[in-house]
Each structure stands twice: as structure tokens, then as C-alpha cells.
């Protein structure tokens, strides 16, 4: 039986709506304090960079990798340590993480990092960057479709197209600057211990068929 129909009064609807709005604000305030802060926090003096190699702990490999990384000015003098976890600790597995503390954040260039390693015959399977909560990656490219181009070149893909499954979940959006030579990857606001895997971006750029000649970390305000 349905019985006598009862309706919510406008006052009740209003009260429930405002209560719900207040709860949303409460959730927002609790979990996203950065959005309520007047000024963004200053970027840290150093950030953790972790590279995963399948051959890090083989005899001689670690030294070769350190040597390759030492050619990069922004990694000279950086503290590095080897870490093995999960499947890496299984017998016969020589994979591992090379944890680096990078102090010269504006000089970080992931393209240079990748090329320096390849020069020595190594490729990192993962390149994880953490420590920054609000930042973006800025790539310089030679062959980028200008913002004013219409029919004679292919514009950047939509962010929804670039993401695949779990890949690039950390990417909020991508834009180009007015010069048409810079592509900016805006990273979603990160939790304190969250990291992004830059190799996911490399894979997406491989799919797209273009690679910038530099890919820097920008932690300053736009």
C-alpha cells in the first residue's frame, strides 16, 4: 500500500540542501586545505626522484647508471640510494629503485635524463617524481601545431584521449603557449606522498609521435 502521499515542504528541502552544501564545504575544507589557503606554500628545497631499473643491482650496472646521471648538471652532487622492494627482492631479480634527492628543481629535465641513460645503454622503466603538490611540466618542441593553425596541422589531442586506463590519471590538462613552441602538462594537485610517473607521459608522447627536446618541472606560479 502506498498510503497517503507525503511531500517535503519547501522549507525542509531548503534546510536539507543547505545542510548538504555545508557538508560538501566541510569535506572540501578538510581534504583540500590548499584550496582555502591564501597563498600557495613555497616549493620544497629538494624533491624525491625515483628511477626504476630492471638491471640496477647487476654487477657494475649501478655504477654505470650513476656515472650516466652524473653527466647531468642538476644531478651532480645529488644523494642517491638503492632500494629494492616487492618483486625486486625475489631471488635472481636484480631490479631496484634508485632514489635521488634533487635540489635544483628548476633544472630538472626528463628528456636529458632519459637521453643520458640511453647513452650508457640503460632505460628506466619508471621515473617517479614527488614532493611537489602543485606543479606542471613544460616541454619545448620543434614541431608543434601553432595555436593559430587551423587546417594544415594536427592540434594537440584532448586530455581524455591521451589518458588510457590508469595511465596519466595525474594529468589535468595540456595546453600550448602563444608561441606554439611550448607544451604545458598541468599536473593535478598531489597528495603529500603522491608521485607521478613521467614514463607514462613518455609513452603517450610515443603514441602521439612527437617528443619535446626538453621537459622541465615548473613549480612556480603561472
Amino acid at each position, binding site marked *: 500500500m502506498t498510503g497517503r502521499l507525503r*511531500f517535503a515542504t519547501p522549507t525542509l*528541502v531548503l534546510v536539507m540542501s543547505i545542510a*548538504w552544501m555545508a557538508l560538501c564545504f566541510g*569535506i572540501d575544507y578538510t581534504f*583540500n586545505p590548499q584550496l582555502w589557503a591564501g597563498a600557495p606554500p613555497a616549493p620544497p628545497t629538494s624533491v624525491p626522484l625515483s628511477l626504476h631499473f630492471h638491471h640496477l643491482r647487476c654487477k657494475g650496472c649501478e655504477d654505470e647508471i650513476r656515472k650516466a646521471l652524473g653527466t647531468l648538471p642538476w644531478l651532480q652532487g645529488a644523494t642517491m640510494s638503492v632500494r629494492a622492494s616487492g618483486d625486486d627482492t625475489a631471488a635472481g631479480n636484480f631490479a631496484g629503485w634508485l632514489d635521488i634527492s634533487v635540489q635544483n628543481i628548476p633544472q630538472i629535465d626528463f628528456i636529458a635524463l632519459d637521453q643520458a641513460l640511453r647513452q650508457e645503454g640503460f632505460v628506466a622503466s619508471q621515473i617517479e617524481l614527488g614532493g611537489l603538490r602543485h606543479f606542471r611540466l613544460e616541454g619545448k618542441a620543434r614541431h608543434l601545431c601553432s*595555436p593559430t593553425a587551423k587546417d594544415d596541422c594536427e592540434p594537440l589531442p584532448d586530455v581524455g584521449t591521451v589518458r588510457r586506463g590508469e595511465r596519466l590519471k595525474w594529468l589535468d590538462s595540456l595546453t600550448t603557449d602563444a608561441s606554439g613552441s611550448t607544451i604545458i602538462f598541468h599536473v593535478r594537485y598531489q*597528495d603529500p606522498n603522491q608521485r607521478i610517473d613521467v614514463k607514462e607521459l613518455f609513452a603517450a608522447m610515443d603514441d602521439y609521435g612527437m617528443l619535446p627536446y626538453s621537459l622541465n618541472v615548473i613549480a612556480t606560479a603561472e
Partner: protein
Amino acid sequence: MKARLRFSLVSTLVVLLPRLAAAHERFVKHDLKKPMQDAFFMQQDGKPFGMDPNMIQIGLLVTLVLAAFFVFFFLREGLDEFLRYKILAPLRGAVQRFVHNLACFIMDKPVRNKWFYAAGEWSVIMFLRSPALVLMYSATNDSLVMPSYPLEPSSAVIFKFIQVLLAILILTQTLLPLCGALVIGTWLYTFRWGPLVAIDAIPVVTAGILYAMSPWQSHKLAITRMNAQQTRVIRFVFGLGFFVLGWAKIYNHDLTVGVADNYPWIMNDPMVGFFKIGTDAAFQRETWVMSFALAEVMSGFMMMMGVFTRLWGTIMIIMFTKLTLVDFGWDEIPHLYPIGAALAVVTSNHLRSEFGIVERIERAWRSGSPAMRWGMVAVSSAVIAFLAVMPIMYLLTFTDRAYLR
């Protein structure tokens, strides 16, 4: 019309500060390919009322068209008599019924047809439940209410589960008044990201209103019709959304034209082109923004006031469907909100205008002088149309858009 989402939900999408606005609109490209002539939209010395003459021309043309629609609407009883006794009288059978139903449809009168009635029932069910699909889709895309509003990762899980719970309540028709409060409350929360975001999301509120006005025992009922009060409130809020969105397009003109820069074919809309007729070609993009926005203001105002509701509702349904299926694609799936609302309103047999007093005077004066009656209708229509368009357009020229940069 707002290529809304059009841009609407495009332009949308999505603004606390312009930077956030841009982020929210990232699903529909909106990069400005060349700067606008901002002075066009602002107060200028030495010009009539400080407004660019092209802007005034477009405003007056829209006012004229709007007034013409009002005149036809207020005199529709006379047109109906002409139709009934001059055109339908010699016809017979199915043709007569079809023309009669078509006339009733266009003139916002009850359509007594079983197919129309069935379509109305289906539309209400679609309007009632389809928001759950968009909520589910948004949850799986780390977004709030619609995919163009990304959630912060730190609170995403909470809001995603809440949206799934709300979607389940909607799909099972459980505690619909609570669902309405949750939808309306969430919409109020979007003000946290700025008024432009909240304006963009007004179509969502229409569904919330229907839920809020449903009985608590909704899970035991087959809700297939909207009553007159529900129809009126939903129609008003639905039209208000477009009316305000139209003005927001002028205010945030860079975002509006940015979408057009990326999807240039949307600049070929015939109605927008009509409003631009005779304007200075040196202000091509600026006049397009004005025409486009005021076309949306006009359609939104008529929907809001219940004037040719079905006609404009049908145009909106076609536009939104085209924008989703043809122009912008999957990213515009939130158009299900306005499509559902428009379908429910268009197929309602409880339509009436907000200008009942003009209609009552027109009816009362039918036995008198036609000139008096037509004059009253003409003056009323002109005043309504003028007040709907020109004052706000004038006031917008004084607004500071610096924070949008």
C-alpha cells in the same frame, strides 16, 4: 543558441577564477587564437550610451524579434480561430487531426493525442533517471556532477561514492526529495568555484527540483507525469539557466569565442548570422559573440516566461543532441540533463505563460476595438522585450572583467 556547452555546459563548462575556469573547460577546446577587441564590450567615450553602435544594433534586432514572438503568442487565440475555421474546416480525418495537434503543439496548448501522451510519460521517466547515468559517468571520471568539473584527488573518493549512492537512489526512485536536496545542495556548493560554474550547472537543478517535489514514497510509485506546478518551476529554472548563460557569454567573451576559434563551423548558425546582419566586419568575432549570446538570452527568456515553450524546447533538444552527437562528441554527454528537462517540458500538457495578465486583457478586449487590442499587445510585447535585453546589455558594459584575465 549556446553551442553551449554548449558550449554551455561547455563554456562550458565550469569558475572561481579564470584560471580555474579554463581548467574546467578543458574538455572542450577554447584556446583563444587571437585577442578580442575588448573595448567593444565596454563603455566607450563619444558613443551613444557609451556603447558600440554594433552592439546596440544587435540588441535592438534581438529585441525586435523577441517582441514579434510575444505579439504572435499573445494573439495566438486569433490565429487559432483562423486556423480552425478557415484552414481546418475543409479538411477531414487524419490530416485535420494532424494539423490541429501540430497547431496545439506550437501554441503551447494541450495536445490530445495518445502518442504525445506516451512520449510525455517516457520523457518524464528519462528526465527522472538519466541524471543517474551522468553521475555514474562523472564518478568514474573523477568529476563532480559532470565530467568538466574535476575533483581534487584528496577528496575524490568521497564525492565519487556519494555520487554513486545518489545515482542508486535516483535509479531506484528512493527518497527522491532527499535526492533533490542533495542535487540542489551540490549545485549550491559549485558556487565555491565561482558564479560562472554555478550558472553553467543550472540545468542540473531542474532535475533536483523534480526530485524535491516528488513524494517521499517515490519508490512505490510510477512517476510518469509532471503536474502544472512542477512543469512551471522546471520550465522557469531551465529557461533561467539559458538566460543567465547568455549574459555570461558576453561577460566572459574570450571563453565563448575561444570555443568558436577551435570549432569554427559553429559560427555559421543561421539565427546568429541573422542578428549580425549589417554589423561592421571589423568586429566580426565580437559581433558573433553578441549575437550568439543574445540568441541564447532570447530563447532562455521565452522558455523562462513560457512563451512558445514547445517551439524553443524542441529547438534546444535538437541543438543539444547535435552538439553531443555531431559537434563535440562524447565529452558533452552531460547534455542529457538539459535534453531530459526540455523533453519533459515540451511534452507536458500543463504549459502556461508568466504573462497571464496580458493574455487576460487581450481576451477581455476581443469584443472591442481591434486596434486597441493590437496596440496593447504591441506595446506590452515591445516593453517586455526591451526590458529583457537592453538594460542588462547596457549594465554589462560597466563590468570589470579584469579578474577573467
